[in-house]
């Protein structure tokens, strides 16, 4: 082919043209995401109409909200005066006036600093469990708990002594976090007793003596382990601790109390209410149900027939009946099953039954995690010569628990939501108990959106937060390379 020069050849590059409007920016986004096909267009329009309807009916209601009023009638007058006759508006004044009942129930206002302090220290106590050994995170947690507590305790006008104690305690813990972060677990171990003392008050010696039972268990088990072997020693330790709790600790605590009457003003269980009650039941049941659930899951996987049968029976029974019937068992039937004239606290009874309930569900979740482990992991543990508990602790459980984190957290979320059911055994949960009291007040009769939105929003924040945290944990612990 001979060279035939074209009539025109461009010797310069053209400047790049912007893409067509259809292929860039807002138009492209709209086209791809909202109007990519006929059906999608219709859906978008329907969605927009629904959204518009919701906004049209709800927006004036939110905007006309009234914060300062002493009754629903006054609220309506203010709204009618400012937005015209027939306008709707939220009456947030009820929240402003009654927020403390939703949070604390009938806990004496002068003692609000005690639940606040317990709640703040809770974060310090769970830190070492969630972030074992991470100095920076632990110190940050203690620091932020300190700051948060300082502000809220000041708002709750706590006595000056509390601030001194707080500075000393958290200062010591922060120093410990810097030097020996592992030792912070001792604070976690002591926290239940501290929390009980803060919430219920009473003699300082009762929780101390209850804790002493665990110390006795440990001492007996360690002393005898050399002579009769670990399993028997632990068994004897449990027997000794039970004897201590049943027969000895009461008189000893009484004796100490007569010598040194330390303690806080007691608060009765029927004064608990609102989110204080929900969190007390929820947190206690969550932390107790995890170990019970693990044991039940192991029992169900066990090849010992009797252990397996009992575990399966327990799990299936609990999962087969509604939580309400279990709560009624706590309030009505325990008086039949316990020795005559036994009295114990209704909150404690509810916590025990809720713990069983959550443990059965957790057991099934963890069983799923155990089943997901390849058989080779068990065989590798055997080949290394590990015994059953070592294998569980070092090889099986870390993997099985990691797999079942989403399930575990959703069980916890369900448990926390279910704490509202305690209203049916006469406790004041935030949803039915407190809201009913507020709605029964002559000033606020006929109000319903505002209290339910308020309580629902708090529940939403806590539960949504928990589910997001579980997603974060899942991503962080993901070690497989897929």
């Amino acid at each position: 082919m001979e060279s035939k020069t074209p009539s025109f050849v461009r010797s310069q590059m053209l400047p790049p043209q912007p893409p067509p409007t259809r292929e860039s920016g807002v138009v492209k986004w709209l086209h791809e995401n909202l109007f990519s096909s006929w059906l999608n267009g219709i859906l978008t329009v329907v969605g927009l109409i629904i959204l518009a309807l919701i906004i049209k009916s709800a927006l004036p209601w939110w905007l006309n909200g009234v914060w300062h009023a002493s009754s629903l009638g006054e609220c309506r007058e203010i709204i009618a005066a400012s937005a015209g006759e027939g306008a709707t508006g939220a009456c947030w004044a009820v929240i402003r006036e009654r927020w403390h009942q939703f949070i604390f129930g009938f806990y004496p206002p002068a003692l609000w600093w005690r639940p606040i302090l317990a709640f703040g220290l809770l974060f310090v106590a769970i830190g070492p469990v969630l972030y074992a050994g991470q100095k920076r995170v632990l110190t940050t947690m203690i620091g932020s708990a300190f700051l948060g507590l300082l502000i809220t305790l000041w708002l709750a006008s706590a006595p000056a002594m509390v601030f001194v104690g707080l500075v000393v305690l958290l200062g010591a813990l922060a120093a410990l976090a810097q030097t020996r972060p592992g030792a912070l677990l001792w604070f976690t171990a002591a926290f239940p007793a501290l929390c009980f003392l803060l919430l219920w008050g009473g003699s300082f010696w009762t929780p101390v003596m209850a804790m002493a039972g665990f110390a006795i268990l440990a001492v007996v088990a360690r002393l005898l382990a050399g002579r009769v072997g670990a399993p028997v020693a632990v068994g004897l330790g449990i027997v000794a601790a039970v004897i201590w709790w049943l027969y000895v600790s009461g008189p000893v605590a009484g004796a100490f109390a007569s010598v040194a009457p330390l303690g806080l003003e007691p608060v009765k269980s029927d004064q608990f209410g609102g989110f204080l009650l929900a969190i007390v039941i929820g947190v206690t049941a969550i932390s107790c149900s995890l170990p019970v659930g693990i044991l039940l899951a192991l029992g169900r996987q066990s090849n010992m027939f009797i252990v397996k049968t009992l575990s399966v029976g327990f799990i299936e029974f609990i999962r087969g009946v509604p939580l309400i019937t279990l709560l009624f068992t706590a309030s009505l039937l325990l008086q039949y099953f316990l020795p005559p004239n036994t009295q114990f606290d209704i909150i404690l009874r509810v916590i025990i039954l809720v713990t069983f309930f959550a443990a059965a569900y957790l057991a099934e979740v963890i069983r799923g995690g155990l089943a997901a482990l390849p058989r080779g992991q068990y065989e590798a543990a055997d080949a290394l010569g590990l015994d059953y508990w070592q294998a569980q602790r070092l090889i099986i459980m870390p993997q099985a628990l990691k797999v079942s984190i989403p399930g575990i957290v959703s069980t916890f979320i369900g448990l926390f939501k279910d704490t509202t059911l305690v209203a049916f055994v006469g406790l004041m949960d935030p949803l039915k108990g407190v809201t009913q009291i507020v709605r029964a007040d002559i000033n606020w009769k006929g109000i319903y959106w505002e209290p339910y939105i308020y309580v629902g929003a708090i529940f939403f924040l806590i539960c949504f937060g928990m589910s997001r945290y579980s997603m974060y944990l899942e991503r962080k612990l993901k070690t497989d390379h897929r």
Partner: protein
Amino acid sequence: MAVASDVPKESFRLSMLIYDTRFRSLTIQVVVLILFALAVAWLLNNTVQNLAIRGKEFNYAFLWQRAGYDIQQQLIPYTNDSTHFRALLVGLLNTLAVAVVGCVLATILGIFVGVMRLSHNWLISRLMTVYVEVFRNVPVLLWILLAYVILSETTPEPRAFRVTDEMLAAGQAPAARMWLWDTVAVTNRGMNIPAPVFDRPLGTLALGPLTLNLTFLALLAVIAASVWVNRRLVAAARRQQEETGERPATWWKSLLILFVPAIALLAALGFHLETPALKGFNFQGGILVAHSFTALTVALTLYTAAFIAEIVRAGIMAISRGQTEAAYALGLRPGRTMRLVILPQALRVIVPPLISQYLNLTKNTSLGIAVSYLDLRGTLGGITLNQTGRELECMLLMMLIYLSISLIISGVMNIYNRSVQLKAR
């Protein structure tokens, strides 16, 4: 080797019960059994003592005594002269009514929301995400209470529907109107809906304690027969298609077979709807659906649907993209790809968690107590328990019934689950 033959020579020592793996599991089981037996004996002993102190004895004779209370919603005939056992049955049926209606509605809504959440439409998928997250993270009790309060406190009183002569003369409209062409009236006492009425009913047949409604049975039989005939028709059409390659038009025959006999029977029985009408101070005629039932069903449906939506979404996402692509490569259209390729595989992932959602919904019906819905918990575990003072018997019976319902549901669904599971390997 030698080790194996050495073992029997070793004399038995007590410590071997714990340290020898051959005996250890036996030891543990015996110890567990003894502890369990002791615990049961302790509980039984306490119960016997407590019953003796209270002067009660454990028997179920009270079930045959007169109940003496009224139940608002009854699916079987019941008066306050009936026995406690009859009240229990009414309560059980009320529980099952909410459970069945709730499960069906929640499944439909859940699948819809789950599929919509996967939509490529940005707005729709966001809206569905908000719905799912809001309903999942707030206690179901709140939805029940809120639905009930809205239904019973914002709806008009029956007298708001009244039209007086003066109002007609002045051209005023009543304060409230009925819905759906004047057939449904929502008042603060309940929802009045039209009732099906037969002018020439077939009567009832008494079989011991059971009474059979012959009208209903006849209708059921006719519908079943037409469905069966329609199936034969479709099967015949398919055979012809496979033999000759041409499918005869069956749709009009199907329509005729499915609807004409049932409509003819309804006409013969004199079927019509009785619409509620305001008479005196209240609506008469029609069926009064209690707000407690509506609130409980709506709340449980919305709450459970949010969970089902997540299950459906996870199920569809679990099917790899390659399956869709392979189906497209075979020339299947999107609708058929979904129906023939994706859904059958996704169902396998979806069904087990779906079962537990059905179980949860059924157990959550016991929250009807919050809106005074007389379900099993409200009759047997509520009024009967309070009237007779038989806490132990009532609670045990109630737990047993709930347990049986749960076990039956999970049993049935497990059979279904096995039928859709992978048959390979």
